[in-house]
């Protein structure tokens, strides 16, 4: 279950809590010991009496309050207090960063990646130089030369081989290892053990010990003079390489917010001093009259005051059918005007617009989502204390035996051998194969954290429109009246709709074509905005539209109301057809379920994943669709802005939740979910927010994605085993004082070889 640390307000899993405290009958969980200590000193400062009641509503309220004060760094994901962060304003919004590095990455992501590439290149080149240099020394030994690593060679009397190794390794330690040492320092301050700490411990021990051997050989009380510079260099180079590879995979993820900003039109045409002027979109003021032409984006929210048109709101609402807009109707900024021109009065501008609210919700969802502990860090959190324990134990045993010199050496040797160089590549190597295989299957995976979460998936939430359904209307039922045949009714409807570009008309024309009907042209075409169409053809007037249109032309449909209502309750939009002043029948059009939707739901249930459907439809219609697809848990009447809250509610049940969606309105929910899965045919924003993207728009890929995630995670776990096993075997060797550079090199070589070849085996796994 997710809980909130009352001190730092961080959301954590209760099982991951480092410490707990009881106060006034409630249990509080903490992310670190310092948080617990602060809490224990003065619990009242962090919890009032009401908050001591462990109710979920109050926890959510506390989170909401915390979100107001905290912000999530869009680059590294760290949740930071706004007042202590570095603030940048872009496109009218504020972003908060934990460091200048993150600011640089945000402002120029490619430059930061290039800088990282440079560091990796320096480290790998240095390591190769070290290896060649070292090999040259060994070759010299093999040739019978008397040169030893710590003895000055005749050509360079003021330098020793060891000094050369020191010179090559030092920049690698400083430039390459800087990040790990900072990470280790933070870990020490938080009193947690992680991968950075293990790397810092192993590399710094090897480096400092070797430097002592080179510069102060007499300080060491033994004849043992081996140096381990390359251990430090290789570990840093490989871990850095692994991080670089992970960054490449994730490099597009920080673009989510940028994509949202791109939706805003750059300019708007407004009426000022009785003249039409073009101004920057952000300069539009409330109550100002805005002019929108065909094909233009609507610059801000408002109410239509003149003209009519149909507006494509799919990007915001997910609804595939363009919405008719006439005087008095509301329009949303960022949506696309289709055919007509109109004027509207701006009612909300800037941060108050619907689009800005969605951006805010995405940010809030991202800020409140908990950061999971990476698997490698979790393994390291157990391994580091164990290694330190073994090092002390080994030293203690040697002291008891009566050899304090050997005690010191074995202590150092255990720390040197403990850090596997393959640790850093264990995750990215498997991830690269997993991501590549996913791409082959039409599934793009953004990062290892989504795989780690997918492994624990318990609930899969589907948005209905465009996700479970096709998002394109189709004719579902044709109901002729009296002696009219199905073909005749469809023919009348098709004649009327032939000149229309409305998606409902397209559905009718498509069905008529499928039935092989030849549709004659109409003599006159009149579109009645928001109502339907009137035409003259085959000697009579044909009318197709809604109830109001029929009332306007005097056709009585009261005795057919039961039939119409029954069709509507099944989720259809009903089009009433009349010809020559007589009612001819009804054509029901609906957004139909995607092929394989039911199969996918069954597959997920078989995999012990609970399936939930989210929809804005009323309960009855939602249940009808749920029954067709086999989903029992349906959450209906959900407003577009409330989807993220629903996902949050499901997470509060203590489950790992995935959300599948396609629209911009799904973006906050995709960001809130532990795993956001975006459909390829959906909006760019949904795709940028999702952690997994299904490129092919085939729902079966949801199951494939889960299977692939689990297979990749298995590989990552195996890799971590291979990364640690050789070094673990080396620990007793080190404890007995038998460690030498060859054994250290062997452990590194064998572990990294095993890791990369084991990762390559994932290519052969069938999904």
């Amino acid at each position: 279950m997710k809980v909130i640390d009352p001190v730092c307000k961080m959301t954590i899993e209760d099982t991951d809590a480092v410490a707990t405290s009881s106060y006034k009958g409630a249990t509080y969980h903490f992310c670190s010991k310092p948080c617990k200590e602060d809490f224990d000193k003065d619990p009242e400062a962090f919890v009032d009496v009401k908050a001591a009641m462990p109710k979920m509503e109050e926890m959510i309220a506390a989170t909401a309050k915390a979100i107001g004060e905290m912000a999530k760094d869009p680059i590294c994901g760290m949740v930071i207090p706004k007042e202590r962060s570095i603030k940048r304003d872009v496109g009218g919004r504020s972003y908060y960063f934990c460091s200048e590095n993150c600011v640089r990455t945000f402002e120029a992501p490619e430059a930061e990646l290039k800088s990282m590439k440079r560091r990796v290149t320096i480290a790998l080149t240095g390591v190769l130089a070290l290896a060649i240099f070292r090999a040259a020394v060994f070759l010299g030994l093999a040739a019978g030369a008397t040169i030893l690593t710590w003895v000055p060679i005749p050509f360079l009397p003021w330098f020793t081989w060891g000094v050369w190794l020191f010179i090559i390794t030092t920049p690698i330690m400083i430039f390459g290892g800087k990040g790990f040492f900072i990470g280790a320092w933070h870990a020490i301050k938080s009193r947690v053990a992680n991968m950075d700490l293990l790397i810092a411990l192993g590399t710094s021990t090897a480096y400092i010990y070797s430097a002592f051997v080179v510069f102060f050989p007499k300080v060491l009380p033994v004849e043992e003079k081996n140096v381990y510079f390359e251990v430090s260099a290789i570990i840093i180079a490989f871990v850095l390489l692994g991080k670089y590879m992970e960054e490449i995979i994730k490099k597009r993820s920080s673009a989510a917010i940028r994509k949202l900003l791109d939706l805003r039109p750059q300019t708007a045409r407004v009426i000022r001093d009785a003249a039409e002027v073009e101004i920057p979109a952000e300069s539009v003021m409330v109550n100002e009259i805005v002019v929108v032409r065909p094909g233009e984006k609507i610059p801000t929210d408002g109410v239509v005051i003149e003209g009519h048109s149909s507006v494509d709101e799919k990007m915001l609402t997910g609804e595939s059918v363009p919405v008719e807009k006439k005087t008095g109707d509301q329009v949303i900024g960022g949506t696309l005007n289709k055919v007509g021109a109109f004027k509207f009065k701006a009612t909300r501008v800037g941060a108050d617009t619907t689009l800005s609210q969605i951006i805010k919700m995405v940010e809030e969802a991202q800020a409140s989502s908990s950061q999971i502990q990476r698997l490698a860090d979790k393994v390291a959190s157990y391994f580091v204390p164990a290694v330190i324990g073994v090092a002390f134990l080994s030293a203690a045993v040697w002291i008891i035996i009566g050899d304090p010199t050997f005690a010191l050496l074995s202590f150092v040797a255990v720390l040197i051998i403990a850090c596997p160089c393959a640790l850093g590549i264990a995750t990215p190597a498997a991830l690269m194969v997993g991501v590549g295989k996913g791409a082959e299957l039409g599934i793009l995976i953004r990062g290892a954290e989504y795989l780690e979460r997918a492994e624990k998936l318990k609930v899969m939430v589907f948005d209905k429109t465009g996700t479970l359904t096709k998002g394109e209307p189709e004719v579902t039922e044709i109901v002729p009246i009296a002696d009219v045949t199905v073909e005749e009714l469809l023919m009348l409807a098709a004649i009327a709709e032939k000149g229309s570009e409305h998606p409902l008309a397209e559905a009718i024309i498509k069905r008529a074509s499928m039935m092989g009907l030849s549709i004659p042209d109409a003599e006159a075409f009149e579109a009645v905005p928001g109502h339907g169409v009137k035409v003259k053809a085959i000697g009579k007037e044909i009318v197709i539209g809604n109830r109001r249109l029929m009332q306007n032309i005097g056709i009585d449909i009261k005795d057919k109301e039961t039939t119409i209502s029954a069709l509507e309750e099944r989720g259809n939009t009903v089009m009433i057809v009349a010809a020559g002043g007589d009612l001819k029948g009804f054509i029901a059009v609906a957004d139909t379920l995607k092929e394989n939707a039911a199969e996918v739901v069954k597959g997920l249930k078989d995999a012990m994943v609970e399936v939930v459907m989210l929809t804005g439809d009323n309960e009855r219609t939602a249940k009808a669709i749920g029954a067709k697809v086999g989903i029992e848990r349906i959450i209906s009447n959900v407003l577009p802005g409330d989807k993220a809250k629903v996902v949050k509610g499901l997470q509060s049940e203590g489950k790992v939740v995935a959300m599948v969606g396609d629209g911009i309105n799904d973006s906050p929910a995709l960001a809130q979910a532990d795993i956001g899965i975006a459909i390829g045919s959906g909006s760019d924003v949904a795709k940028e927010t999702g952690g997994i993207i299904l490129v092919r728009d085939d729902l079966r890929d949801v199951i494939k994605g889960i299977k692939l995630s689990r297979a990749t995670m298995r590989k990552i776990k195996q890799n971590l085993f291979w990364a640690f096993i050789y070094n673990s075997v080396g620990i007793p060797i080190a404890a007995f004082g038998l460690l030498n550079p060859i054994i250290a090199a062997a452990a590194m070589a064998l572990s990294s070889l095993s890791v990369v070849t084991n990762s390559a085996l994932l290519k052969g796994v069938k999904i």
Partner: protein
Amino acid sequence: MKSRFVLTFLVYALPLILVIILALYGIVWEFQVYLILAILHLVVVSGILWYLYKDMENKITDTQREHEKE
């Protein structure tokens, strides 16, 4: 299936095979071992990682291209 099994076995037995071969030649603790371990390992591992990376990049590019065509 058979080839997969052989491949898996080879991967997991690779370190052992390597050490046995070196032992047969009597050079387990000689400088050649260091050459093999330090230089070859670096080149081989980097090579395999590079291959995995390029393979991933190509597959992502192909998929995106296919998606853009649609």
